[in-house]
Structures are given as structure tokens and as C-alpha cells.
């Protein structure tokens, strides 16, 4: 850029401003195996790996609303950019023909799953939890001691839960009166 005068520089910047506003990619096509860096101009968002309780940080690269690459976040003190094979495969979790996109419901005795709305599914779960809890709530044990517990519902957590999620679940389940609160990692 050494030989560019101020006038020419302005012309160049104006030119590239116009070009960038009509978004034409002027980069020369390279003869590499992959012709263009696929995360070039992609939108970067941070996320957390959903698999294990380590909770590695991710950068998700998206173009036109479609995920094109998922990598570890180098700024994270947890994984420092690294990912295990499960974490490294997250691209195919986002882009997968088998991905379930809406809640499915199979009524008792039914053989087929049917699509339902989130609203219906969540309120139905809440209704049934409340019905079971109310029906089987134990106020006092056989010796008359106040116990306030529910033995008819159990909760199983998973290793994918992080600290904060475990805390919230524990709070909710204890509030409902559950005593059978288990964790997949203990099985």
C-alpha cells in the first residue's frame, strides 16, 4: 500500500464501501483442496457442549442461519479450544436429518408418535406431575411425624447437567417433595 496517495486511498475505500454494500465476494478462487475458508464471514456465537458435565465452551459458526462449523472456544479456561470426539462432532447434531425438532407425544396404548405444541406438552407435564403429587403426597409417616414427601415420582439426572442445572433441579424436586432423586453417574 506504500505507493497509494491519499486521493487514491479515498477512491479505493469508497469503491470497496460500495462493493461491500452490494456484497460481492472479490476474493480470488484458490486452488487449495478446500477453495475458501468455510467460516469466512460466518456469524460466531458461543455455546456450551451439551454432552458431559465438563461443559466445554464452543464457538458455533453459522452462515445464512445454518451451522457450518463448531469448534472449541480458545478463550475458555475449561477446554482452551480443545474438544473430545463427541464435542468435535457437534456439527452433525445441528445438521442432522434425524434431529427431533418438535415435541412428540405417544398416548398410553398408542403405537404412533404425534407432533404436539410446546405449550400443550409443557402444561400436560405440569398437570400430570401435580395430579400424581397431590394424589400420593404423604403428610405424616406411620408414627405421626411430619414428612411432607412424594414417593410416587422419581427424578433421574444426567451427567450432561452442569452445576447450576443440578442446583435448580434439586431445588424444584425438593420443593415438590421428592425423595428419590438420582443421578445417572451413580448407577
Amino acid at each position, binding site marked *: 500500500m506504500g505507493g497509494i496517495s491519499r486521493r487514491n486511498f479515498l477512491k479505493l475505500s469508497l469503491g470497496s464501501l460500495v462493493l461491500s454494500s452490494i456484497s460481492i465476494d472479490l476474493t480470488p478462487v484458490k*486452488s487449495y*483442496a478446500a477453495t475458501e475458508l468455510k467460516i469466512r464471514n460466518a456469524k460466531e456465537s458461543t455455546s456450551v457442549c451439551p454432552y458431559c458435565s465438563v461443559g466445554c465452551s464452543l464457538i458455533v459458526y453459522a452462515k445464512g442461519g445454518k451451522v457450518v462449523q463448531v469448534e472449541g472456544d480458545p478463550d475458555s479456561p475449561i477446554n482452551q479450544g480443545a474438544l473430545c470426539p463427541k464435542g*468435535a462432532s457437534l456439527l452433525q447434531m445441528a445438521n442432522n436429518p434425524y434431529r427431533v425438532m418438535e415435541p412428540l407425544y405417544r398416548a398410553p396404548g398408542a403405537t404412533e408418535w404425534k407432533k404436539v405444541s410446546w405449550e400443550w406438552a409443557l402444561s400436560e407435564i405440569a398437570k400430570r406431575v401435580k395430579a400424581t403429587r397431590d394424589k400420593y403426597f404423604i403428610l405424616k409417616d406411620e408414627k405421626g411425624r411430619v414428612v411432607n414427601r412424594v414417593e410416587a415420582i422419581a427424578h433421574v439426572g444426567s451427567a450432561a447437567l452442569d452445576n447450576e442445572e443440578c442446583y435448580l433441579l434439586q431445588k424444584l424436586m425438593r420443593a415438590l417433595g421428592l425423595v428419590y432423586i438420582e443421578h445417572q453417574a451413580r448407577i
Partner: protein
Amino acid sequence: MARKALLITPDLCIGCRGCQVACKSWNDLPAEKTKNNGTHENPPDLTGYTYNRIRFIEKVNEKGEVQWLFVSHRCLHCGEPACVEICPVKALKKDAETGIVYYDKNQCIGCQACQAACPFNIPRYDKNGKISKCHFCIDRVKAGLSPACVKTCPTGAIKYGNREEIIKEAKAEGYSVLYGETELGGLGVVYALKASPKEYNLAENPKKPENLIAMGQMLRTLIEKGVALSPSVLKDIGLIKG
């Protein structure tokens, strides 16, 4: 940009194969059918859609202990790449800056001479018969990023950097054997070992084919004469065996 290299330290590898998956993710390579071969090694070989994999080597040492060695299997990006020398259409290239051996599928005619010439039997072919192998993520390297396998490696078993510097570092860390430091003009993938390369099933004293230059000239002459080179033609002239 100085010559780049990967430093692979099998002693640090835990065999998680994050590198294999990260490679597939970055290069948008599909999964392939595999089979259980009685070990955890999977997939069983490099293919047109698997550019790197970890070899699982089970050995019993002198003390009678079982050793489980994890060794990266991929293109080693030779300093004097036989594949580039023999390729009659210059589809295989060596990057002048970084020393990376890469390729252009559009130029490849699928004659498979590169596989015949490769001292490590690395090049594979996709379903269209075009060359496929590790290209050192040259797109990432040129953009200032590390290759996908390096970035994902949780233990630092694959390191990336300027070749001279990472070799110096490996020596300072006490690795006595640096496989690839001098072999074939110095490999772009260097293995830091504490035992002989043989222990890790790495080819000792790899050599380019003796008639490489003559064969390359012959292939180019054939193309000039209008012969459509293919694996069967190369078999006829004895370049591909079997």
C-alpha cells in the same frame, strides 16, 4: 510464513480420536461403514473420506507389560514429496511457503500414480476417483488458524508451529528420537518418540521409488501423446502392482 509442521507425541495421545472427528467436521467428510476388527482401532484404514486416523498398537515390552500405543496415521507432508514429483498433471502441489503438500481435485485425472510413488502409501481416492488426503488444513493455515486436528487435541499430542521451533522444543523436552526430522527432505509431520520408530510401526528409512524421475517423465510423455492415464493403464506399464 516459515515452513510449518505438526509435532506428534504418541506418548501424550490418549486415543480419544477427537482429531479424526474434527477433521471430518472441518472437511465436511461423511461417515463411512466400518466393522469391528477385534481392536479399538477404527476405521480400519485411511480412505477418500478419512484423512487421518489413530493406529492402536498393542505390544508386550521386555518386562512383559502390555503397551498400548496410539500413533497418528496420515499424510506426512514430505520435504521432497514423491507424489508431487510423479503427478503428471501437477494436481499435487507443494506450497512454497509452508511446505504443505496439497492438491487440486479439479486438475486430478485419477491415474493413482501418487499412491504408487508414496513411500507411506497414503493417497486415497474419493468416489469420483480423485485424490483425497490430509491437506494440513491449508485453508486454515493460510488464514492464520491451526489445523482442525491440532485445535481439538485435548492433550497436546498434536502440536502445530514453525517446523524449526517445534523440533527444538521437542528436543528440549527430552524426546531422543525425532522421526521425520531428516527423512525424505524432512517431513512436515514429525513424531517425538522415546523409542525406535519401529516400536511405533513407523517405516524406518523411507525411500522414494528409485525410478521416480523416469516414471514421471514417462507419464508426462504419455499425456502429451494423448493417452488417457488411468489406474489400469498404470498397471499395464507396471507402475501399479497387482
